[in-house]
């Protein structure tokens, strides 16, 4: 993949080894501006490259906040987050973030196709126009999420599920190595549910790291490698989890070694 001539942000291209976790949170605390107490407190979480993690917990448990901090949308007020071995914002082309639907201006005059195309912008940078390759990737992604027929529709005319598939299409069109998904299955129709599940499965099979914040615990054991409980902004049983994470890391390593 070619890198942009005038990138939006400076990339710190370390060459992360195989052992570098995709997401590494050490004692992370995050506070919203103007809030008294942090929404996330002392969370330590290690996500191995290629794994599927579910962050679960009630509303207000800090799932979204943690994902937003990892995506660089909120500053960390304590601890460290490393993404693919770089500090947050250091390699934003490798991280795609699916925000909740309400955080976008759906009344804006824009087509579905154009919105998905914005997922390519991080690879274009300033002053560059989308190439044929970019357009091809967008078309393929639209097919994949079964919204090719909506491509020229205005984003304001979409149903909730179609909006969600459009946003996921943009995240996928970015061709990131890690996807941070905030409630991807919240209040969507059955078709979207099955399409999204299938797409996530195939992304995972392609070696992408997937972190999903959800309060939907249905099917959770089958879909994810590991489940992390958050409550009141803290990891439940952080100590136990840390040990588990270590074990898992070792297990992962042996698994990786077994792959020829």
């Amino acid at each position, binding site marked *: 993949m070619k890198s942009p001539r005038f990138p939006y942000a400076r990339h710190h291209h370390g060459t992360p080894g195989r052992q570098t976790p995709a997401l590494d949170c050490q004692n992370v605390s995050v506070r919203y501006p103007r809030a008294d107490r942090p929404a996330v407190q002392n969370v330590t979480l290690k996500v191995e490259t290629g794994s599927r993690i579910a962050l679960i917990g009630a509303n207000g448990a800090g799932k979204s906040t943690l994902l937003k901090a990892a995506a660089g949308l909120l500053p960390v007020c304590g601890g460290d987050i490393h993404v693919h071995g770089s500090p947050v914002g250091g390699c934003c082309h490798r*991280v795609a973030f699916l*925000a909740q639907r309400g955080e976008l201006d759906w009344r804006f005059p824009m087509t579905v196709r154009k919105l998905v195309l914005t997922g390519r912008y991080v690879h274009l940078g300033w002053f560059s126009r989308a190439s044929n390759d970019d357009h091809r990737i967008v078309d393929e992604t639209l097919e994949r999420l079964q919204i090719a027929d909506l491509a020229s529709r205005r984003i304001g005319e979409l149903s909730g599920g179609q909006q969600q598939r459009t946003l996921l299409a943009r995240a996928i069109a970015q061709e990131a190595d890690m996807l941070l998904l905030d409630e991807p299955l919240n209040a969507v129709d059955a078709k979207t549910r099955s399409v999204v599940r299938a797409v996530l499965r195939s992304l995972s099979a392609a070696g992408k790291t997937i972190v999903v914040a959800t309060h939907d615990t249905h099917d959770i054991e089958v879909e994810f490698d590991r489940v992390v409980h958050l409550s009141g902004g803290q990891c439940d049983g952080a100590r136990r989890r840390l040990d588990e994470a270590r074990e898992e890391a070792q297990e992962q390593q042996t698994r990786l070694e077994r792959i020829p």
Partner: protein
Amino acid sequence: MSWISLHDWFARTWVGAPLQYSFMRSGFAAVVMVGITCAVLGCFVVLRRMAFIGDAIAHTALPGVVIAYLEGYNLFFGALAAGLLTALGIGWLSGREELREDTAIGVLFTGMFALGVLIISRARSFRDFSAMLFGDVLGVTRADLILMATILAIVLSVLALFFKELELTSVDPGYSAVIGLRADWLRNILLVLLALAVVTAIQAVGVILTSALLITPAAAASLMTGNLFRMMVVSALLAILSGIVGLYASFNYGVASGAAIVLTGTTLFAIAFGSRSIMNLKYRSFRAM
């Protein structure tokens, strides 16, 4: 009919008569250029819900213009300095997060406008300054026209260069932050362009009506198309139309030019709104082009 008499006949029609005067020809050139500048920028103003800030920058230009006039500086630089100061001041006040942005704007712009009125009231009679408050498009000089053309060129080229980023930060500032695109820089670029556009618009329609040039054509265009680029083209065409029709009305009926231009724009908006409503009634699921 010979060529000369054809020309004479044209000069007597209501279309040709105003064009015999050089001040009218400059006036037409001015309203077209100012119209395009404001209408194109206005699309972002409307879509990003910055209408209030556009109005504020126009109003706060008043003390700048007045001080420049009294001290014998170029009015353009007075207006530009005041406009930029406001844009940055609003950013600074609301960035401290103790005040909401619209509150910061409300406090700053009424204060600045009152300062302008205060200085006028001490200086001379209000009459000298009516051109600033209500515009004087028929008094534009050659230098003004060159300035308007320059600002038009600057605005169009900056918008062309940053179009995809401006579009993305308008529709989804959150996502642009994720990919490392600084939405606040683009907002500042937009504010500077806005200050430039407002300076030219003051000449055409005055401080009080300037925000109409920014908002009305863009608002009408937003009802007619579902694509940002096309919206900008339609908005510019509507602005040109209302500028020309407004000036003709002003010439033929002897009414204030700024008000005539703005009211023509308002009428076009009303037509767009009315036809959109009828279409919505006719086809329940009417889809914009």
